[in-house]
């Protein structure tokens, strides 16, 4: 595995980064504040200072997947806005967005949480009731996605009743997942990180990366981001500048 700088890897300018630099950098921001302080456990005590980080840290991996979800929630909001304004909605854009949520978020990202993150927290007796709520929300989200996918057709979007049902499901989905992912980023992942030694963190990173490659091939994350950009372009929300309010 090639050592990479996670901030440059998608641009093809990978360079080695000392593990300690990355782990300690993260530890002084989120983990130490939210996780380490909460649980009284050092985030990276076992990290060797002279080793090289070969993968993006497991929790950062999960958080950047949340970035994908956030962009897809913006797509859902735009589709909902168009439905409310009785404007045309490209069926392909909606079905592609829902398809990405189904395959990448629900089939992959949430499976990582269900298989590795949540059981570890449960095992440690940490945030157990929150874990149950998050799992329940995964189940509800998957049901909503299945309904959205079933309706995201040209014929479905042409019927007023179906458009109303799609808009309602999109609103419910966005409303649930915004606090869901925010809670995971700020509370669950730091707590999870604080439970792992540096060695375990490195192993999890390798495992998460391997699972992603098995499901989506090499550079799977970059492919997903490219697909999200394509959907945004179709809906006219790709230009970041358009979200900047006018200044004085």
């Amino acid at each position, binding site marked *: 595995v090639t050592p990479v700088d996670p901030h440059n890897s998608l641009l093809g300018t990978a360079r080695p980064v000392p593990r300690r630099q990355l782990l300690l950098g993260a530890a002084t921001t989120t983990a130490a504040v939210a996780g380490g302080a909460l649980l009284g456990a050092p985030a990276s005590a076992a990290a060797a200072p002279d080793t090289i980080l070969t993968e993006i840290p497991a929790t950062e991996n999960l958080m950047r997947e949340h970035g994908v979800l956030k962009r897809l929630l913006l797509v859902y909001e735009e589709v909902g806005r168009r439905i409310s304004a009785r404007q045309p909605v490209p069926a392909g854009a909606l079905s592609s967005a829902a398809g990405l949520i189904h395959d990448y978020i629900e089939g992959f990202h949430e*499976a990582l949480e269900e298989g590795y993150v949540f059981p570890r927290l449960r095992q440690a007796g940490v945030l157990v009731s929150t874990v149950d709520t998050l799992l329940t929300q995964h189940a509800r989200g998957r049901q909503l996605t299945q309904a959205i996918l079933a309706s995201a057709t040209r014929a479905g979007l042409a019927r007023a009743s179906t458009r109303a049902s799609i808009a309602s499901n999109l609103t419910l989905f966005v409303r649930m997942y915004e606090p869901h992912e925010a809670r995971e980023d700020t509370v669950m992942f730091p707590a999870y990180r604080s439970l792992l030694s540096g060695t375990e963190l490195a192993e999890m990173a390798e495992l998460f990366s391997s699972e992603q490659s098995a499901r989506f091939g090499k550079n799977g994350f970059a492919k997903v981001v490219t697909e999200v950009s394509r959907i945004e372009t179709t809906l006219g929300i790709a230009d970041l500048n358009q979200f900047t309010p006018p200044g004085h």
Partner: protein
Amino acid sequence: LSSRARRSGLTVLLGAAALLGGACGGGHGADKATVVGTAQLGGLGSVLTTSTGHVLYMFPPDAQRHVTCVRLCAASWPPLTAANHVPPKAGSGVQQSLLGTDRNPAGGLSVVTYDGWPLYTYADDVKPRQASGQALDLDGGYWYVMAPSGQPITVGASP
């Protein structure tokens, strides 16, 4: 993936499955049989469950032959396991003759089968008698609860 990470990941995943299995009644000591029971669910009727009432699912791609849900699929759908050489036991309403086991491709404990279908729990069913995975399309196919007759119940879940 290094063998070290594979071992560790497998340990964690199996730990997760054991944790869920334990909560779902699939946990067992070396000589304790896994018990399959039934529960009555609104809209679905009588369905197979673990001994603690957690609903069990079948997965059509298994083709009534062997376990195909592995790796991350098994993270969302932990299989119901049985100690090797300890046959699973039928609880009330369950036919002992339909119970069996299949080798788990991930290694470790055998997977309990019913009329040849490997049985799985759903990670998101946090309470007994929940069937939030019913008729869900995930991990390459739909998931269905099973009647004690051995027939899948394909009633769709509407959001």
